Structure formats: C-alpha cells, structure tokens
C-alpha cells in the first residue's frame, strides 16, 4: 500500500491543476508516439511476413510458398513469443488490462518495467505474425506503463499513480480508435471505476493530446469508415435489441471459451514456452482454408459492412473458425488482447443476423451496416465490460447518430443479459480468479484481496493452559481486551478464552479447563474480508494467524484492527471518488 494515500495534498489548487494537466498532456503525447510506433510496427511486420492480404496476394500464383508462409510465420512467431514470455516476463504470462486494473484498484506495485516492455514486444510479434489476438489490450497496458512511470517524479499528489495510469490508458484508446471521448470514458469505466473530477481532468487532457498528436502530427487514417444513409424503419430497433440479446451469448461463449482454454493449457503437458508455437501452427493450417482468421482481419471487418459480400453459411463458418482460433491463440499464450478478435467476431455475427433477415424477406430493412455494427458492439461490450465506451466508440468512429442509437440499444440489452449470466467483463472474471473479485464493488474487492498479515500483530499476551483464570482476566482487563490466545508447550495454539467464560469461577481455575479448543484460525492467505466475516460470527475479538505450511504461529489479528482496515479502505474509496482537484 502506498503511503501517499492518506497524506494531504502538498500543493495549492493552481499548482495541482497545472501539475495534473502537464502530466496528462505529457503522458498523452508519449503514449501517442509509442502507440503509433506499436501499430506501425505490426503493420510493417504484417507486410514483411506476408500476413497482410495486400502482400500475400502477390504469392497467389505460387501456392506452395504461400502455404509455407501461412503456416510457418505464425508457428515461428509463436516460438519467439513463447520464449520471450517464458524467460523475460516475471509472471510468465502476457500482461494486459487485468494487471492494470489490479494495480490501480489495490494501489499495488506495477509489474517490473522490463516485464512490461517484453510483454508488449511479444504482443507486437504475435500480431505481426498473424496470431488471432487483439492489439488494444497490449496498447492499454503500454499506456499504463507510461502512466506508471510518473511515479519516478515522486510528486506529493494523493492517488497520483492511479490517475496517471488511467491517463495513459485513455490516451492509448484515444489514439488507437481515433476516439478521444471513448478513451477518456474507457479509463474511468474499466480502469478507475469512478468519475472523480480530479481524475477526469488529466485523463481528458491525455486523451485529447493523444488524439491531436496522432491526427495533426502523424495524420493517422481513421480506423473504420462506413457510409450509412440512416435507419429506414422504426421496427428495426426490435431487431437491434434481439441482436443485443443474441450477442450476449456470443460474448459469454467466447469469454468462457478463452478462460477454459487458458485453464486447460496450464494443465496440459505441452511446455509453456512451446504452447504459442502449437497454436500458431494450427492457426496457419486453418488459415490456409479460411484466410480471414489471420491477424486483426481489417479487410474482413470492412467486408462485413458490404451487402452480399458473404454467403450465410460462409459467415457462420468464419465466425466459428475465428472464435476457435482466437480461443486457442489466447489460451495457448500468444500475447495480445481480446478486443480486436471479438470486434471482428461481433461484426460478422451482426452481418449474419442481417443476412438472415434479408433472406427471410419478411420485412424491409436498412441494409447490412446497422446490423453489423450492432452485432459488433453487442458482442464486444460484455467482454470488455465497457458499455459506455463502446457506444462512444461507435459514435466517434462512424460520426453517425443513427448508427450510435442502434448500437446503444444492442449494447444495453447485451450487457444486461451478459452481466446476469456471466459477469461484468472477462477482465473481472480473470481478476476474480486471481482473488480480486469486483462483483460486489470496489471496497469488497479490495478488502478481500491479498493477505491479512499487514494488520497482524506480533506483540500480544500469550497465555498457557496452566495459567490461572484470575491472572488472565486481570491481564486482559489491563490491556483492554476481552479474549486471549492460549499457547501450549510446543508453541502451538491450543485454544482461546473470553473473559466472559471466566465469570463466576474460582480465580485459581486453570485456563485449560475453561478454554475453547475450537479456536478460529486464520492463515497468511486469509484476507481482510474473510476475517471481517469470521469475526462477525464469533464472540472472540482475536484470532491467531497460523502458517499453513509450517503450522507456526505468525501473530494475531484483532477484530478492531480489521474494522479499522475496512474503514480505512472505504474512506479511501470515498475520498478518491469525491476528490476535488
């Protein structure tokens, strides 16, 4: 835990505003440059390694070389990625948005800088070699690396690390989608989980600076251009809502598939460093038949908005293949996110819905575009857990009000359903698996994360079963406690006593006769939330913490300390969420 959290601001309001705005714009510019470098790097690799269709078509007349490239590049890329992740990333898995969320929420220490850089490099190679993973997850992490560097300035601004990381993330999304508003909202919705003014200002500045830099200085092309005339019929909104509901199932199926495959891979006998290569080889074989599954699939994304570009069965086949290879690539350790693949899966799913509607010929419709966009957003928003940011991305990408309203309807229904049957997002589920469960809110997640040992006491009265209860009661009263831990000859906890148990008994009664042997015990893996719940059901206000490995007594935890810790966390959250500049 960071010390600065409770210290008051050391600067005046004007200085703080200037500091935050300066930090925000600096982070925005740096992230903008790095993000463009990252994206350009991927594009360059795609060109050099013949992953981009634009280059691949030039080999079309030489099918054997083409097949070698399509299978070989992802396989060799996978080998390199596996090697980098295994030997250079401390946690031996690619880093991504869940790691960022965790650091911001718990005010923990970010992963080492070297690990972050190597993980980003691995993502660049993964995407460059055509792995079916996303580019935005690594970009979000890249943004958070830049943001966390602000720590070296050692500024005395409360909660600075979280704000700077959120600014980095806002800039990353702003640059990669050309969507500054969505970037700013994403940082709040997914990373910070609150909308305090103090964080609002720097994230907005960062998102805007990133956008300006990318557009004015580098002249980046818009990510997604779509021409749309408008929704023709009011009843089509019913279909958009239906797509939302169906999209929730796509999202949940996809997320569960990825999580299952990650679990399966970790239990499999294939060495971790070699897993991406296995996934890459299978991906290449699939891509020989269905080239759309390779990489980010920018071309397929565009085709999905063209009427009659696909047959219905072709669409279904590509969706199934893309879901399968993405689950495989992510599960088997390619470095990358879920955002771009689910965008593609979603837009194809939406196009499928539109095509089916077109085939049925029961009612008129406005073409495939709004259905494709609705499908894209309905499938993506539950996976990312960012309905607001998703709606804004549609608005900023298409600059089309009709499409945004349509997408909004789909997103709302999809999120409603998916949050019921799955959870808020795939990131949250991954974090919950690591012990940080945000389902019941930030306070509950923070107190239920990590160990209780930081509020454990090592100085406490130690009683022996042979001690007389008169002396014990006196000692406890003297230190203002109502219960004490009883330790046997072998330094093992044998029981607990409450002063109430001693009333009416002869002062000379040995403690062993009255003590409760069914002592509530904590271990180093017990968290504050669990302790709070345990104390609530117990009359004793103290509990021993016993090492689960050596069975040694590590210390004791008092209920009052647990309650103080709970208050401290909830005060912190309240301050953070209501903090003025």
């Amino acid at each position, binding site marked *: 835990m960071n010390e600065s959290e409770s210290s008051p601001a050391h600067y005046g309001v004007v200085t703080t505003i200037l500091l935050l705005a300066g930090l925000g714009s600096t982070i925005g510019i740096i992230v903008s440059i790095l993000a463009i470098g990252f994206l350009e790097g991927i594009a360059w690799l795609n060109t050099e390694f013949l992953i*981009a*269709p*634009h*280059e*691949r*078509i*030039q080999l*079309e*007349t030489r099918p054997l070389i083409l097949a070698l490239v399509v299978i070989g590049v992802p396989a060799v890329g996978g080998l390199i990625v596996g090697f980098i992740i295994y030997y250079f990333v401390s946690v031996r898995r690619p880093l991504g948005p869940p790691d960022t969320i965790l650091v911001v929420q718990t005010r923990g220490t970010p992963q080492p800088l070297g690990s972050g850089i190597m993980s980003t490099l691995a993502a660049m190679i993964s995407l460059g070699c055509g792995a079916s993973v996303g580019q935005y997850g690594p970009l979000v992490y890249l943004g958070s690396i830049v943001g966390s560097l602000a720590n070296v300035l050692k500024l005395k601004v409360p909660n600075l690390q979280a704000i700077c990381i959120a600014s980095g993330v806002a800039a990353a999304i702003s640059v990669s989608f050309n969507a500054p508003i969505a970037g700013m909202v994403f940082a709040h919705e997914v990373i910070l989980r609150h909308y305090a003014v103090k964080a609002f200002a720097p994230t907005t500045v960062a998102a805007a600076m990133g956008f300006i830099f990318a557009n004015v200085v580098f002249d980046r*092309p818009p990510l997604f*251009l*779509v*021409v749309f005339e408008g929704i023709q019929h009011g009843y089509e909104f019913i279909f958009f809502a239906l797509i939302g509901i169906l999209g929730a199932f796509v999202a949940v199926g996809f997320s569960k598939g990825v999580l299952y495959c990650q679990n399966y891979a970790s239990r499999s006998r294939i060495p971790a460093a070699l897993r991406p290569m296995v996934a890459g080889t299978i991906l290449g074989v699939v891509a020989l038949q269905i*080239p759309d599954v390779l990489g980010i699939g*920018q*071309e397929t994304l*565009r*085709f999905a908005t*063209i*009427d*009659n*570009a*696909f047959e219905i069965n072709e669409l279904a086949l590509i969706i199934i293949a893309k879901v399968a290879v993405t689950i495989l690539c992510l599960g088997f350790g390619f470095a990358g996110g879920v955002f771009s693949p689910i965008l593609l899966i979603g837009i194809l799913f939406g196009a499928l819905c539109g095509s089916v509607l077109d085939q049925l010929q029961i009612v008129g419709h406005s073409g495939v575009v709004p259905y494709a966009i609705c499908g894209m957003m309905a499938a993506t928003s539950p996976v990312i857990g960012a309905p607001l940011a998703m709606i804004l991305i549609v608005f900023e990408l298409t600059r089309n009000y009709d499409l945004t309203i349509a997408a909004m309807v789909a997103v709302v229904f999809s999120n409603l359903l998916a949050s019921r049957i799955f959870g808020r997002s795939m990131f949250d589920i991954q974090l919950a698996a690591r012990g940080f469960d945000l389902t019941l809110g930030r306070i509950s997640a923070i107190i239920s994360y990590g160990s209780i040992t930081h509020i454990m006491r090592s100085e406490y009265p130690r009683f022996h079963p042979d001690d007389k209860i008169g002396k014990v009661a006196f000692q406890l009263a003297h230190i203002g406690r109502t219960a004490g831990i009883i330790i046997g000859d072998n330094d093992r906890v044998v029981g607990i006593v409450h002063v109430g148990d001693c009333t009416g008994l002869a002062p000379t009664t040995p403690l062993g006769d009255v003590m409760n042997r069914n002592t509530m015990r904590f271990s180093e893996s017990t968290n504050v939330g669990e302790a709070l719940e345990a104390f609530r059901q117990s009359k004793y206000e103290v509990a021993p913490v016993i090492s689960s490995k050596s069975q040694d007594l590590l210390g004791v935890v008092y209920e009052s300390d647990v309650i103080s810790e709970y208050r401290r966390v909830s005060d912190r959250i309240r301050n953070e969420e209501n903090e003025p500049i």
Partner: protein
Amino acid sequence: MNRYSLAILMVSLLTVSNGWAQDDELTISSWGGSYVAAQSEVFFEPFEKEHNVRINLRPYNGGIAPLELLENPGHASWDVIDMTESDALAACNHRLIAEFDRSILHPAADGTPPRKDFVRSSFFKCGIGHLSYATVLAYDERAFAAIKPNSVADFFDIERFPGKRAIQRTPKGIMEWAMLSYNVPVRQIYDLLSTKRGFRLVTHRLNQIRDHIVWWDEGHEPVELLREGKVVMASGFNGRFYDARTNQNIPITIIPDGQFLELSVWTIHRQARRPDLAAKFIGFATSTERMVAFSNTLPYGPTRKSAIDRIGLHAASNASIREHLPMSEFASNRRIRTDSEWYSGTETLRNRWFNEWLNSAGE
C-alpha cells in the same frame, strides 16, 4: 572466311555507312489520338528541329506484352516508350527497360536541381514520371436529359441510367470502380482487392452490366463511341474528354467521382538503338518549359513543381486549364491513386481473372 559470309559483311558495312549518311533517327512509342497530336506539337517537332533528328512514331496501347515481343530477333527496336507507371514497374521488374539515369534531367529555370523540382513520386528506377493523368468516367449529355449520373455507383446502375458503357479492355480501373461502388473507402480499395472475396464482389458488379459493355482498346475510342451515340457512358482519359468537349464541341461531361490517377512515365528500352538520343529527348521533353506547353494544350498535370506554378490558359480556347488538371482541388474527393507496386505484383492474377470473366461471358 567463305564468299557467303564475306557478302554478308559487305552488306552490313554498307547498311552502317548508309545510316551515317542519313539524319539521326529516334523511335518513340506513344499513345494515339489527341494525346500524341499534342505530343507531336510540343515535344517531337521542336526536338526534331533542334537536334536535326527524325522521330519515328510507333503506336503503343499499354501493357508489357509488346515490349516482350520486341525481345525476339527481327523485331523493330523502340527507343523511348511512354508508359503507365504500373506498366513501367512491371517492365522494370522483367528487365525490359533500362535503368534510368537522373543526370539527363534539366534543372529548372532558376537552377533548382531536378531532385528538388520533380514531385517525389515521379522518380522511378527505370523511368521518370512526366505527367499525371486521370482515367475518368464520363457520359453523353444528350443521353440523360433529366437526371445526370453523378457517382461511380451510377455507372453500374443500369436501371436508372440505361444504355451501353464503353470500358477499356483491361482489369485496370474497373476493379477499383467496382469497389468504390460498394462504398469502400479509397485507402482500403487495394487491401480488399487483395482477397478472393474482393475479386468476387468485382465479378458480381461486372455481371450486372455484362450485356451493356462495349470494350475499347485505344485511347481515342471512347470519345468516338460517345460522339457516335454508340454508348452513353465511357471510361477514358481526362485530357481526351476535355479535348472533345473544348475543341470538338462534343457534349461529354466527366463524372467527378472516382477519378483514377496515374503517372505517365518516359522509359528507354533496354535494347534501344539510340540510348544517347533517347536520353537527350527525355531531358528535353521534361524541361519546365515543354511541360508547361504540354499542359496548356491538354489538361494533364506536370510533375515538376516549377511547371505546375506556370500553368495558365488553354492554348486553343483561352479558358483556364488549371481546374481541369487531374490533381486540381476542383476534382472529386474520392480520387484513386494507383498502387503500382500492387499492380506489378498481381499482373498475372488480374489478367487471369479478367480473361476468365471475359470468356465466361454470355453464359
């Protein structure tokens, strides 16, 4: 040495000495119609006079096949060829044309070296881009009295705009226009065309107008077809249509949407007989003064900055010519810039697809 070979030696010696006695000759291959007429006036005739040379013109209608034919013994030799940039790239890759020596270019009037005066994209390994032209869609005003075609999609819309369409017999241009008719953004056209699905969409679009196509091969044909009322719309070069409208009073209007920009490139054949004279000619024809004179005759854009700044009135009609140039800001906002690298890399594939489609006609 027997008598027979001696005879041959005698004859060849005679031929050579005979060549010396005559004026120097230079063979230039270029496109026909008003284009070559303007070139003769602005480049060929002045060059002939200035250097006491006779220029032989050979017709050329694009592609690299004619150059490959020249490789065979017994064929006449070409010295200078006026090629499209994608053909020039392909010919360079096939080593049919010689590497270009930039030192033959003249500096601008104020001494600006060619390296700085030519727009950057005009330098090729085997040639120098000398003008930009646009392949455009145009229609006969008489055919559409009420609503006029206004977009690439209208060109493919047989129901709203019935009538025959004249299209160049090549996959070039028509593929890009088909993509544009699906509202594909210009910068993604070649990415989408790099997939089987892209080809399929193009085929689908072409099938819709299959029975309404009249193919043309030479640059002057579309104007004639429109004039004679044989077609109502046509693809063609912007300068030809301009010339037809301004100088011949034929009611042809260019559709501003989807203009297809390319550079025309002077190249020297690898087996040119007079590479020295060819180089001298290219230097002359790419001088600022000659470029300006040419653009004032036909609205094709010069590739020298010093020439772009000097363009004024159309030589024949005294109308301002600047706004008719392909790169003019008055032209459409959906302008396609040829991806020549993609073109030279997909030559075989595109031609195979196109011929298959042509042969499947009528089924």
